[in-house]
């Protein structure tokens, strides 16, 4: 095991896969010579050279078009969209082209590609650089959607995403880039579509994603210590494929579900999970399903305001307490 930061784990995964498969190529803005504006891809240019690691102009449609065309013709491109907010300038390539082409062509076109992007708030960047948009991707059939919460999963899931034969949107949570954790040395691959049960409890199931995972864990500590509530905490890790069986198993046992999302309220993955549970597991429920989200507003920039909008340990605790008590 080595201690790596979340951002270092990105480069580690890319390097691992680029070493093993020469068809893996990587492109994006400022990713090569500069090593990425979040320093997530340092060293790759040096190791793999300018033919495989390429700086691009500010042309997100061309970046993703290049990735798609290359994936259709034998390569396994990884593209970076610097901030996930910028998916909006190239959404056609993602949602209409990449997501639909295999299906429309009756399976003729393979699209083994990964799009990495820095997602989420907490950096005081304001409303256009702080969105959590993993739901945009989840809403479109044909995209796999991954959002890791820790360095080991960054490495393992990104490796799996690169090996996956389907298009994967890989959301790296900005606010986690500086966090550190043990990461297995040597080849490390974590299969897509498997939620991670971080702790087991009897009273309530808390499902979280990405930066909400450490908050949910802290909340579970507080709930245990201060309220005597024992919570299962599940790190969803992937939205597509969605590991409903792990979640359902836990909710069947606890009878209560709380979801914690960073994205704004409407149509989040928590709503989808809530609807699945209330459709298929209704009779196991012992109380309402509670969703904790950012309010349905653009994120403000000032630190004081931004912090107050994002889901916090306190909000999770009080949401659970209200439900369970």
């Amino acid at each position: 095991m080595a201690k790596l930061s979340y951002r270092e784990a990105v480069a580690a995964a890319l390097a691992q896969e680029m070493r093993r498969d020469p068809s893996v190529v990587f492109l994006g803005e400022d990713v090569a010579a500069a090593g990425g504006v979040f320093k997530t891809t340092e060293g790759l240019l040096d190791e793999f050279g300018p033919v495989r690691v390429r700086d691009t102009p500010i042309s997100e449609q061309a970046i993703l078009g290049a990735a798609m065309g290359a994936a259709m013709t034998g390569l396994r491109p990884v593209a970076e969209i610097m901030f996930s907010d910028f998916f909006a300038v190239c959404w056609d390539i993602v949602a209409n082209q990449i997501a639909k082409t295999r299906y429309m062509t009756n399976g003729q076109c393979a699209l083994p590609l990964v799009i990495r992007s820095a997602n989420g708030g907490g950096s005081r960047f304001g409303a256009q650089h702080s969105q959590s948009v993993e739901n945009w991707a989840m809403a479109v059939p044909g995209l796999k959607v991954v959002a890791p919460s820790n360095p080991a999963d960054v490495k393992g899931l990104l490796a799996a995403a690169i090996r996956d034969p389907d298009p994967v949107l890989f959301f790296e949570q900005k606010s986690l880039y500086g966090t550190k954790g043990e990461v297995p040395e040597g080849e490390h691959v974590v299969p897509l579509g498997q939620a991670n049960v971080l702790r087991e409890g009897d009273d309530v199931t808390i499902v979280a994603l990405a930066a909400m995972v450490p908050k949910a864990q802290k909340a579970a500590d507080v709930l245990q210590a201060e309220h005597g509530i024992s919570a299962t905490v599940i790190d969803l890790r992937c939205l597509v494929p969605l590991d409903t069986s792990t979640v359902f198993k836990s909710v069947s046992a606890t009878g209560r579900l709380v979801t914690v999302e960073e994205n704004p309220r409407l149509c989040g993955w928590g709503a989808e999970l809530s609807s699945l549970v209330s459709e298929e597991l209704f009779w196991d429920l012992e109380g309402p399903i509670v969703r904790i989200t950012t309010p349905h507003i653009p994120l403000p920039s000032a630190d004081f305001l931004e912090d107050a909008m994002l889901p916090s340990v306190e909000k999770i605790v009080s949401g659970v307490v209200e439900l369970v008590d």
Partner: protein
Amino acid sequence: METNTHTSPDQETRLRLFSLMLACRGLQTRAFDLFMQNLVKGTTHLGTGQEAIASGFGAAMREDDYTFCTYRGHNHTLVRGVSMTSILGELMGRDCGLMRGKGGSMHLTSVEHGAMGSYAIIGAHMVIAAGAAWSAQYRESGQVAVCFFGDGTTNIGAFHEALNFAVIWKLPVVFVCENNQYMEYTAIGDVTAVKNPAADRASAYGLESILIDGNDADVVHAHASAALEKARQGGGPTLIEAVTYRHGGHSRADPGKYRPDEEVAKWKDYDPVKIYRARLLESGIAESVLEEMESATAARVDAATETASNSPPPPLEIAHQDVWADGGVAWRN
């Protein structure tokens, strides 16, 4: 505008060009008839009148080159060797269709023939074609991607990104603007800052301005050959504007009333199939040879129509297949 033929292609090539154009014309005419009989559901966009461009390129491309085209892509798909039956079947939503009815008229794709897709949202396929060219360059395969698009497409952002990108990476891609002078119902001149929507913008990407007669199959073939060769040799992308006209409306049953009668008449007279037929006759090919080609094409179209019409609708289960590489559609476990 480039109207003369630099090189006079040999007779074999000429006959091939004519045969491709005949096939395109036959297919398009039949597609229209089937649409009018309500056998083509949804929509269909015909390339009647624009056959010289697809054919000129089709005859010049290497078998493993890539074609990227638009919803108006029947000709471009056909000239790569895709069967008429599978094209008409797709238009009619039958099981014999190229994608078994899952794509439809606007999305003809045959990877096995290098026909890498017909794209229905303006601009996107230009950047995707650049990506295929990047892959060819990376794999050093010598393949070239050819991307066909319309005049109206030159005003969308992706056009700009694709051209800049292709030039800076020196990609083996040929961008072919089929300037048929209209977007849907609006004349291109009404919404474009320059006269020649592609050629007048070539210099913005450091490219040569190339404006050619898109109704002259020899001119197209010569330019196609040169651009393909340049790309194959590592010379980078080419942008070609080929001026042409669509005989019919934009799509479906659009009567195209927004176009002046004389304009339509003039262009119908300057028909690529007609002028090429006359040229072949002049060059010494016997009328009987041409007639034989024409009746062979007609028979091919009839046979394809017959087979496609008799093909059943696709089985329902295919709607639940092939979102993913594992053949399935599951988003959960």
